[in-house]
């Protein structure tokens, strides 16, 4: 008998561990969505092979669409997770910052002529310049948050309101259009590779952040500052610097997403590009089970959360749900998440769980 009960204990422990693991939340959401689609229409999972109009091989299907469009969000989720963890708040200016980064990119590529026949600068140069610009704006947000102690949402409200005008100003309100086909590769397919490029870019970002987390102390320091600012300082950390760093890293993510976004249409619309993407990025962090009040974080869960959101979006599109109703669905998801993860509800759940176990034993 003791053997038996020990086994049972192990079983429940494993289950409990899974429940406790942060990644359980986005994983469960993903499975739920997948199950829904499987029941409603299994063809959702179909992937077909074909050629696009340029004659390049491409894979297509809903899953590919999710990988394609979810990747932008996944990249942003990396930066947003760090900002959330370090500052205990969120950056709501990423959409506007993407407009700025994209506009800078196009400005460098186009030079003074908004419709150049040839690129005025190599794409890599333009991209690096847009990175610098986006990181500077990130640092601006970071300084407001770290040194002026402005709550992140309020601090980033400044760029949120002004960013798109700045983006338009960078290009003198003109509409640059790039005719060079290779510029389009970043937002679609590289000739000969049938998987959407944004997914590769996201994978590169994931590898980079994994390596950074392995070979530097970023995770320990960011978490420690987010959990206890004062104690971190007494342990020799500079909490202000760490917070600014997290915003600068988000700036870098913004520049990468900006490249993908403008590459998709080889142009830009200042007022609508990446509109409301900040909410999706924040939602990805929340869906990853990370406390929006900062502290401990799980990067993998955030990234998975980003793809889950795209999964949800694509599913809703498929069933022809009016896309202007999407934010309402997402808001509903946030409400559920926030309520479920609140200490009050968690305590209640753990009590119920304990009671059940007590009954089982009794």
């Amino acid at each position: 008998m003791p053997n038996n009960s020990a086994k049972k204990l192990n079983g429940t422990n494993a289950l409990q561990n899974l429940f406790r693991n942060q990644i359980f939340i986005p994983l469960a959401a993903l499975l739920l969505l997948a199950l829904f689609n499987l029941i409603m229409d299994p063809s959702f999972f179909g992937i077909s092979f074909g050629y696009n109009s340029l004659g390049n091989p491409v894979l297509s299907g809903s899953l590919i669409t999710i990988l394609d469009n979810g990747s932008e969000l996944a990249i942003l989720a990396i930066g947003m997770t760090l900002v959330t963890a370090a500052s205990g708040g969120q950056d709501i200016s990423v959409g506007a910052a993407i407009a700025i980064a994209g506009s800078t990119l196009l400005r460098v590529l186009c030079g003074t002529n908004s419709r150049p026949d040839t690129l005025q600068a190599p794409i890599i140069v333009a991209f690096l310049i847009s990175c610098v610009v986006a990181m500077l704006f990130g640092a601006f947000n970071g300084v407001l948050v770290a040194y002026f102690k402005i709550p992140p949402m309020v601090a980033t409200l400044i760029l949120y309101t002004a960013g798109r005008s700045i983006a338009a100003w960078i290009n003198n309100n003109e509409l640059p259009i790039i005719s060079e086909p290779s510029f389009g590769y970043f937002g679609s397919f590289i000739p000969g590779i049938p998987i959407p490029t944004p997914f590769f870019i996201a994978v590169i970002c994931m590898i980079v952040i994994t390596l950074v987390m392995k070979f530097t102390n970023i995770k320990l320091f960011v978490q420690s500052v987010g959990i206890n600012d004062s104690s971190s300082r007494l342990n020799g950390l500079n909490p202000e610097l760490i917070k600014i760093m997290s915003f600068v890293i988000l700036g870098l993510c913004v520049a990468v997403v900006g490249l993908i976004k403008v590459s998709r249409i080889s142009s830009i619309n200042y007022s609508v590009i990446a509109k409301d993407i900040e909410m999706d990025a924040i939602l990805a962090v929340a869906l990853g089970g990370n406390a929006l009040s900062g502290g401990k974080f799980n990067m993998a869960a955030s990234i998975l959360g980003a793809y889950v959101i795209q999964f949800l979006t694509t599913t809703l599109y498929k069933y022809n749900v009016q896309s202007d109703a999407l934010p309402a669905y997402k808001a509903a998801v946030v409400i559920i998440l926030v309520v479920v993860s609140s200490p009050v509800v968690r305590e209640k759940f753990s009590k119920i769980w304990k009671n059940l176990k007590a009954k089982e034993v009794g």
Partner: protein
Amino acid sequence: MKKKLLSVVLSTAMIAAVLTGCGGGDDSAATSAPADTTADTTAEAPADTTAEAPADTTAEAPADTAASGELIKVGIINNDPSESGYRTANVNDLQNMFTEENDYDADFAYSLKNDEQITAAQKFIQDGVDYLLLSAADTAGWDSVLQDAQDAGVRVILFDRTIDADESLYEASIISDMDQEGQTAVDWLAGQNLDAYNIIHIQGVMGSAAQQGRSGALQAAAEEKGWNIVAEQTAEWNAEKAQQIVQSVIDSGKEFNVIYAENDDMAKGAVAALDNANISHGVDGDVIIMGFDTNTWALEELKAGNWNYDGQCNPFQASYIDEIIKTLESGGTLDQKVIIMDEKGFDAETITDDDIANYGI
């Protein structure tokens, strides 16, 4: 923190209706404009530029000044040029027309916010402009300031957008007819005599005048003629969203042969999705592409045969306004208060380079 996030998410959901496409409109178009996220960096501009206006120019003097060859003072209140490509073209058009060479002394004020526009209007009236040209951000709230203008002898001409105020308060109103734009496009589509009509309808921001006019015509025709709307979704004037919507239709394997996008950006996004799936489009293609706003690049796509149709939303009101002012200055009267501008639809097979030069924005 969590509470904060919630409130932001919810409020974002609520203010989702934002006007960004072709900015013309008569009713609800303007009401959503203040919610736009683009900040207005030029709102302060009028304060600086009007400061040097001579204080002795009185409002009663327009006839004299014109007769003596002096400049006609106009104050122009418009929406922010970064609002959209349409607005940029509109602003450029006005700036090119109201110059000293054309005997105008013009001051410009840009804002997407009604209250800032009203402040600018009061400033112009105080400065004693002869004409106040107005594209209002919001339809409401203009009565008292227009009454002030009338009392001060300032003549008001509305352009692009009309307002909820008594007709006696302004001289003329120059607007686009969105219903007509839609109708022109739908008539063109009917004229294609397709065997079947399977349409993906990509809408602008719901509730904007442009969306209502362009959607209305298509929906009526679909009902009347039995056209099949495969998908009808708003992409909120956004190219990427349009791409996703079309992509999801392709992924679900539904048949379609027409994409009716309510602006050029969304048509472009739709085409990107088609290209990825190697679905041919445009002249001799499998799918007919329709867009609006006659952006220059869109007309070039048309000329290249990648698209089939592009409907105009005319941002060039300056010449109309000029004509009206000239008529009034010479003591003439206007035949009608509301002037609806000519708006064309372009077909890929008939469009010329001249059309692109003349009508592209």
